[in-house]
């Protein structure tokens, strides 16, 4: 419960109200008027609240805190009016079953009040002068001190300009697990301007050994909220945006659009492909890591620079890989996800500073059991349907021969092929295909194997949204000896 009081706070009465038989801990914080501020003496403070908004926001903070720390009960009172030195300006009491959640919740309430409550204070000085201070604005201004990042901006590779670039940057972190936690922590520390966190999960006790943003106090809480709280304490200058949901084919574009770098810290191939393809389509660099027990992989994908995720898995889709590679819930060496997550943060910061070097053209393999590190060149695959490297494809499959029969069919030629031809619409991962004509097969563009099956049975006519993948697929099929592979340039098949 949150209240605003214009008369002195009665701590004893509030403690009585907080009492509950199931609460083994009561943590109380009192914010008091002190006699100095920023080196100047202060004689008294006058608080003024935007009353309605302050009550709403204060109530929201209390509710949010009780959700973040399950099992806590919060009582909070903020004063308005004239207060003398030593008087209580804000009183926060948290009753909880155990002390950990109580301390954490109490800390959360005061930090959020300082950050969000629309309350101003007027400082009176001994010389008779007085000035208004906006509490939330003060909290943010204090955070933007140069000293915080001074040991980083002193690097010649960063400098004041690089630091400013980081402060203007928007970074999306998808997944707040063993990778996302350390990645987000180091990104916040580096001073990126805005961090958006996406995860629909709740903190579980079995997460804690590696998911370093969370403590035993947050078990059961939404990961995004718990992480945001921790990251704001770590660097108040960073704007933290939370999305308490899973990443899906439906929301991915909205989440990726406008970001400068995206970190894939998820644990399954389905999400990895959806996120990769959205980043590819929107031209946003993607830093992807994955871990199996003691070992991990790191890839930096940037459109047009090195191979993409599909280049590595030509003809195989997320479902195939999921069956073999997904070990969500399996054993994991905490430091392995820690190292890989921090490497993701490092790559993201390097991308923002234009210092990514060879990272965008390599897969790095890291083994923390035998300490072996390996960089593998990741060129674009000439048959990759996503990269659509048609220039390379031409040189690798002798285009004169492959294109002896034109790839493209007009409606009359299409009619001539008749029912003998299988018409296929290649749907991009996450794409909702347009209405197609009767008899048109919709095949995921990641499923080269299925297209090959159709091509082996007879003529195929391919279309897709932009015409690039269908052309690349058709050329590939011709290179494999399927002369009757065609494309048709409209998206309804």
């Amino acid at each position, binding site marked *: 419960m949150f209240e605003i009081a214009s008369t002195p706070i009665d701590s004893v009465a509030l403690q009585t109200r907080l009492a509950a038989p199931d609460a083994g801990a009561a943590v109380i914080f009192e914010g008091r008027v002190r006699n100095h501020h920023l080196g100047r003496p202060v004689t008294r403070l006058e608080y003024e609240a935007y009353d309605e908004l302050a009550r709403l926001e204060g109530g929201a903070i209390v509710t949010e805190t009780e959700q973040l720390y399950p099992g806590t009960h919060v009582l909070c009172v903020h004063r308005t009016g004239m207060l003398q030195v030593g008087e209580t300006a804000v009183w926060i009491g948290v009753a909880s079953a155990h002390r950990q959640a109580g301390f954490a919740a109490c800390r959360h309430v005061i930090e959020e009040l300082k950050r969000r409550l629309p309350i101003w204070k007027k400082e009176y000085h001994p010389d008779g002068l007085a000035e208004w201070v906006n509490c939330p604005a003060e909290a943010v201004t204090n955070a933007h001190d140069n000293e915080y990042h001074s040991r980083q901006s002193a690097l010649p590779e960063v400098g004041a300009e690089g630091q400013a670039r980081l402060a203007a940057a928007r970074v999306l972190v998808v997944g707040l697990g063993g990778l996302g936690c350390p990645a987000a922590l180091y990104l916040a520390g580096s001073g990126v301007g805005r961090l958006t966190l996406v995860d629909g999960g709740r903190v579980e006790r079995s997460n804690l050994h590696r998911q370093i943003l969370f403590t035993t106090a947050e078990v059961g809480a939404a990961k995004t909220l718990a992480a945001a709280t921790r990251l704001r304490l770590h660097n108040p200058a960073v704007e933290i945006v939370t999305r308490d949901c899973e990443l899906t084919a439906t929301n991915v574009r909205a989440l990726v659009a406008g970001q400068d770098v995206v970190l894939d810290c998820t644990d399954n*191939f389905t999400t990895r492909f959806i996120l990769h393809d959205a980043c590819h389509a929107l031209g946003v660099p993607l830093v992807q890591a994955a*871990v199996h027990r003691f070992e991990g992989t790191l890839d930096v994908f940037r459109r047009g620079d090195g191979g993409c995720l599909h280049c590595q898995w030509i003809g195989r889709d997320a479902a195939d890989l999921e069956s073999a590679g997904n070990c*969500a819930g399996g054993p994991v060496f905490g430091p392995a996800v820690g190292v890989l997550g921090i490497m993701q943060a490092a790559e993201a910061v390097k991308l923002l500073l234009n210092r990514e070097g060879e990272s965008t053209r390599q897969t790095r393999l890291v083994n923390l059991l035998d300490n072996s590190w390996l960089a*593998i060149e990741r060129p674009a695959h000439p048959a990759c349907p996503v990269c659509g490297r048609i220039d390379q494809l031409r040189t690798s499959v002798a285009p004169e021969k492959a294109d002896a029969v034109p790839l493209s069919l007009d409606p009359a030629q299409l009619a001539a092929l008749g029912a003998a031809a299988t018409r296929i619409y290649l749907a991009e991962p996450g794409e909702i295909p347009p209405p197609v004509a009767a008899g048109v097969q919709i095949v995921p563009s990641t499923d080269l194997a299925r297209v090959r099956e159709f091509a082996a049975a007879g003529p195929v006519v391919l279309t897709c949204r932009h015409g690039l993948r269908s052309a690349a697929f058709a050329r590939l099929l011709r290179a494999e000896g399927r002369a009757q592979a065609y494309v048709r340039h409209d998206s309804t098949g």
Partner: protein
Amino acid sequence: MADKLLRLHVRFFAVLREQAGCSTLQVETSSRTPAALYAELQEKHALSFPVALLRVSVNERYADLATPLNAGDRVVFIPPVAGG
């Protein structure tokens, strides 16, 4: 020519390393492609992982399973990894 054995450096990653029980191997083989080499190693080391779901790199560069192998090549078999 076909009988001549190639000496190769093989590295396994993740679940393959666990199945093989080692990270690295020196092999002398009559196999001439990563696909043939993997089939040979599958038998020798009881690797159950399907070749269709592997990536392979030769001399620190992703390669097709049909890439011709030469003496001294470094071959890494990389299964899909998705944990996070």
